[in-house]
């Protein structure tokens, strides 16, 4: 999911010259770019930032859901949630590996996240207050993520596209398990249904923001589109998500928290209300409900794991020294 970074491009000189033309011709011919191929510096940097933001989002995304693993209402739910959170860890690792093929080290990427220089999706800075939030995240957040990620399976950069194919295959279980939670709650007691509605109320708008700023404001989209890093506009994907999700909410018997939402017969789309972009910018800039907590937890995990990394390396060094001695 989590590719709000697709909306910016590094501000360095646009490439020109014969090499750049050949590069563009390869992309136009739907050829894939592989790690050691020549590429414009701007393409490389844009991808490093986007893939690593995507990876960071997966890793930070483990936290809101991890919050409920020990309190899942049944063993079935607990096993599913555990598997989902584990998948997100895996997705983060596929993506870090893809970013590293562009010549940046894992350590540097982690450092960018922990020092607050790198961004991750705004959605993970919202809290998970009730069990229904786990349902809403699977259904809505992962639903939005899938909309965003499917086109990335055809991204021009080979390693990113391959990682996204794996991610997408695994992601569809996430959305279905979330919807199942929502369905169970909305067919349950009035209190349970109320809980599901409350979760939808809190997650709906932040989910629409996941697709990034409106097309008019994302000034660098053209270059990303030309390079086939991005294949659909933010607003286009957002509309697709709304059109797919509104009938699913109706099936649950829940109300989308948007009084202006209506179906446009002529256009064949659900028309949604004004998105609070100030909130989006605040959360992205670090001032969401959980920004500080999320980073603090990641930093603590990293620091607490330092001795493990150190011990593993020391053990490996000792073993290889012993092997060399034996051979001598």
């Amino acid at each position, binding site marked *: 999911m989590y590719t709000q970074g697709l909306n910016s491009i590094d501000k360095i000189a646009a490439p020109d010259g014969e090499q750049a033309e050949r590069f563009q011709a390869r992309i136009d011919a739907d050829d894939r770019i*592989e790690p*050691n*191929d*020549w590429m414009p510096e701007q393409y490389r940097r844009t991808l490093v930032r986007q893939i690593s933001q995507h990876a960071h989002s997966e890793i930070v995304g483990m936290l809101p859901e991890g919050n409920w693993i020990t309190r899942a209402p049944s063993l079935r739910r607990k096993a599913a949630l555990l*598997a989902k959170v*584990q*998948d997100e860890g*895996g997705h983060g*690792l*596929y993506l870090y*590996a893809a970013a*590293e093929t562009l010549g940046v*080290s*894992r*350590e*540097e990427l982690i*450092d960018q996240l922990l020092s607050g220089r790198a961004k991750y999706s705004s959605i993970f800075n919202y809290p998970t207050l009730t069990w229904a939030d786990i349902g809403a995240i699977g259904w809505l957040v992962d639903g939005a993520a899938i909309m965003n990620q499917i086109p990335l399976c055809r991204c021009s950069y080979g390693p990113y596209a391959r*990682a996204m194919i794996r991610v997408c295959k*695994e992601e569809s279980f996430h959305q279905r398990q979330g919807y199942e939670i929502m369905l169970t709650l909305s067919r349950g007691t009035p209190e349970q249904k109320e809980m599901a509605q409350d979760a939808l109320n809190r997650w709906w708008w932040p989910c629409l923001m996941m697709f990034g700023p409106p097309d008019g404001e994302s000034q660098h989209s053209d270059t990303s589109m030309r390079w086939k890093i991005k294949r659909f506009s933010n607003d286009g994907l957002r509309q697709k998500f709304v059109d797919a999700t509104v009938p699913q909410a109706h099936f649950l018997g829940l109300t989308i928290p948007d009084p202006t939402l209506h179906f446009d017969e002529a256009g064949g789309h659900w028309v949604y209300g004004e998105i609070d972009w100030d909130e989006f910018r605040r959360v992205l800039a670090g001032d969401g409900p959980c920004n500080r907590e999320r980073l603090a937890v990641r930093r603590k995990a990293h620091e607490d794991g*330092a001795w493990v*990394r*150190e011990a*593993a*390396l020391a*053990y*490996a060094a000792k*073993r*290889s020294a012993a092997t060399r001695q034996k051979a001598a």
Partner: protein
Amino acid sequence: MTEKAIPLWEVFIRSRNGLAHRHVGSVHAADATMALQAARDVYTRRGEGLSVWVVPSSAITASDPAEKGMMFEPTGTKIYRHPTFYDVPEEVGHM
């Protein structure tokens, strides 16, 4: 960053017997044992494989994409290496 970098390994998985191991991605690990464990956790959560290889990335020697012309183009003109280059009369049947 004062920490020492943890080595990178390339991961290859045989999805079922009869197929070759195929590159699926990479992991960081301090040694081969940990690399195997990490590869299992990261790349086989859904029964994707029966066998895993991990290879230190630094042990791989790769051809240079910039020299791919020199490496591969010469075979482009050697069409006589393909069966379709040879004419066999139809009455001979499938060969």
